[in-house]
């Protein structure tokens, strides 16, 4: 199972080592990790996507909460929060395939940010599903380089109290 953790930590030197070290030490698998400032300069948000057995996923949250610099840990399900990832990908694009590739990029709302005689570099963002679908769509042309930010996430504001996520 995959689980998204949104972790608010004190903006301290070494805090990322503590969080990442916990995953290594206890044998949890990180699929992606993204960290950045929040509206409060003393607090950093780290978003981690982890893979594990169901009981392990709760254990991860409990262990994270024990870390001194961790203020808050949320286990996020997809329909409770907006999740986004930014991806940059250079696609092999010989002149004959170029317009086809750009058309496909448009369909995904991806931007062309660089072009050479035989490549097109695209910038795209979206939730996990969209990023996967997009990369699959371009796989056939050949992706020569790729960089992904890892997922970031914010809970939806204004959820009614009695709202229950669809499992």
């Amino acid at each position, binding site marked *: 199972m995959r689980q998204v953790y949104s972790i608010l930590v*004190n903006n301290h*030197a*070494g805090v990322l*080592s503590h969080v990442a070290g916990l995953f290594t030490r206890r044998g949890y698998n990180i699929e992606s990790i993204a960290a950045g400032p929040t509206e409060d300069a003393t607090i950093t948000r780290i978003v981690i996507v982890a893979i594990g057995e169901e*009981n392990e996923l*709760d254990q991860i949250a409990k*262990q994270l909460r*024990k870390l001194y*610099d961790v203020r808050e840990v949320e286990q996020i399900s997809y329909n409770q929060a907006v999740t986004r990832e930014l991806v940059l990908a250079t696609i092999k694009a010989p002149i004959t395939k170029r317009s086809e590739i750009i058309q496909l990029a448009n369909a995904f709302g991806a931007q062309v940010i660089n072009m050479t005689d035989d490549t097109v570099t695209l910038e795209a963002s979206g939730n996990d599903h969209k990023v996967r679908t997009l990369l699959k769509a371009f796989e056939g042309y050949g992706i020569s380089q790729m960089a992904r930010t890892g997922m970031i996430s914010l809970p939806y504001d204004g959820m009614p109290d009695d709202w229950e996520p669809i499992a």
Partner: protein
Amino acid sequence: MELNGSQIMIEELKAAGIEMAFGIPGGAIMPFYDELLKADFPHILTRHEQGAAHMADGYARVSGKVAIIVTTSGPGATNLITGLANAQMDSVPLIAITGQVATNMIGTDAFQEADVYGCSIPVTKFNWLIKDVNEIQNVTREAIRVATTGRPGPVLLDFPKDIQITRAEYTPRESVESPLPAPRQYPELDMDGIEKLLEAIERAERPVIIGGAGIIKSGASEELAKFAKATGIPVINTLLGLGGFPGTDELFLGMPGMHGTAYANFALCECDLLINLGARFDDRVTGKVSSFCPKATIAHVDIDDAEIDKRVHTHIPILGNVRDVLITLNERLRPGDYDEWRQTWTDWKANYPLQYDWDGSIKPQYVIDQIQEITEGNGIYVTGVGQHQMWAAQFIRFNEPKTWVTSGGLGTMGFGLPAAIGAKFARPEKDVWLIDGDGSFAMTLVELATAATYNVPVKVAILNNAYLGMVRQWQELFFEKRYSHSHYPENPDFGMIAEGYGVKGINVTDVNEVRNSLETAAEHDGPVVLNFLVNKEENVWPMVPAGAGNDEMQLAPPSREARS
């Protein structure tokens, strides 16, 4: 007033009531050491930093108080890592203060530089690299708080040399506003959980209590005794929980698990309610989890939420301090009727006692039995790790908490001697006995020099079988007697070594001399090493093989002339 960084830290340590240091100076910590001297701060100079850490560990386990460990940068600090890991596994509060190269040199591979902050992350509860003299007051207080509250543990302050001498304005303050959010509060007593447990106790027919280190650390022994006596529920103590319940009490079932008593393991297999009070379901206790307490409703009281459901699924989880929970339980007890159960476990105790053969050689269990007899369970007992540790856990009958000092979670060979020295500093009025193996003892025996220098009258009984005995036992049982590198045929003369350190040393080869030599040691005014050349092939029984369930326990091979 204006003070330098070292002085500020020392002021804060003193204000918190810390009054003991163990350590070794070196280049990057010299300014701090200079101030320790000027402040007349009590300090024990050890021979190895690992020894300093284990001394502070033994001191903390026996006194409940925290000591500081002081080392220099680089190798001085990396030598601490085993000691910190040991304390982390057994939740022992320690404060390590390590010198670090000056801040402008950090990251340049300077002389005696090591990334001690990075190295110590996985082996401490928390750690700090102090980069600003103005942080010292807050950070020192936070360090003490973190080490000693909630589930205790070791912390480390990495202290660069330039910050040690930088001067800053210092105002002693009753409370310092933490730059960090207040510690997460433990929730109020979980009354729902407690009520569920009370109902389960009322309904149960075969309940059993397992008391862990949480009993000792929260000071819950009296409440536990009250609880057990009011209900008649028998008590098992884990390795680190020993001393939490009187070893001579009829309700006591001994230790569970791999080398536990037969009756403790039978009780775990047959109980219908397991009340876990502050134990963490270690793999040496549970054996194969799928066959652990198969018939029981499991209740688990723990101060650390992450321990609940970590290895064993819990039906009644109660997050909280064990003592607080027990006080509330005791106020509302509604015990059921466990007469039939009592008959069952009483019979087990009578029919499956701990025992050993008697063949004229010095049996290690016999030596421990004799130590038990002459101290009547009123000493402080310290061990290394291995067979001797298991025999001590089985054969000593503890009267009080905080009289048993052993390395449980990490299983650190070499823990014994320095921990015993630390324990004696904490409780000088108590007789401190170290029961050690020759393998364990040899790892840190250099601290005999510390015992001699400060005349710390610890009594050391080495159960010397010239083997890494537990390894030898496993090789005999599980590796078809291929004794791969577990034998020390050329063991040194430990009696003579002791004498060389200025410590009384006696080699004992005759079983008839055991009692005499122990009495001589007890009466001697100073440290003593008794080197008992014991039976080399003795094994620890009962045994649950690694990976097997507690229901697959093997009892001792048939005895010739049982003595227990």
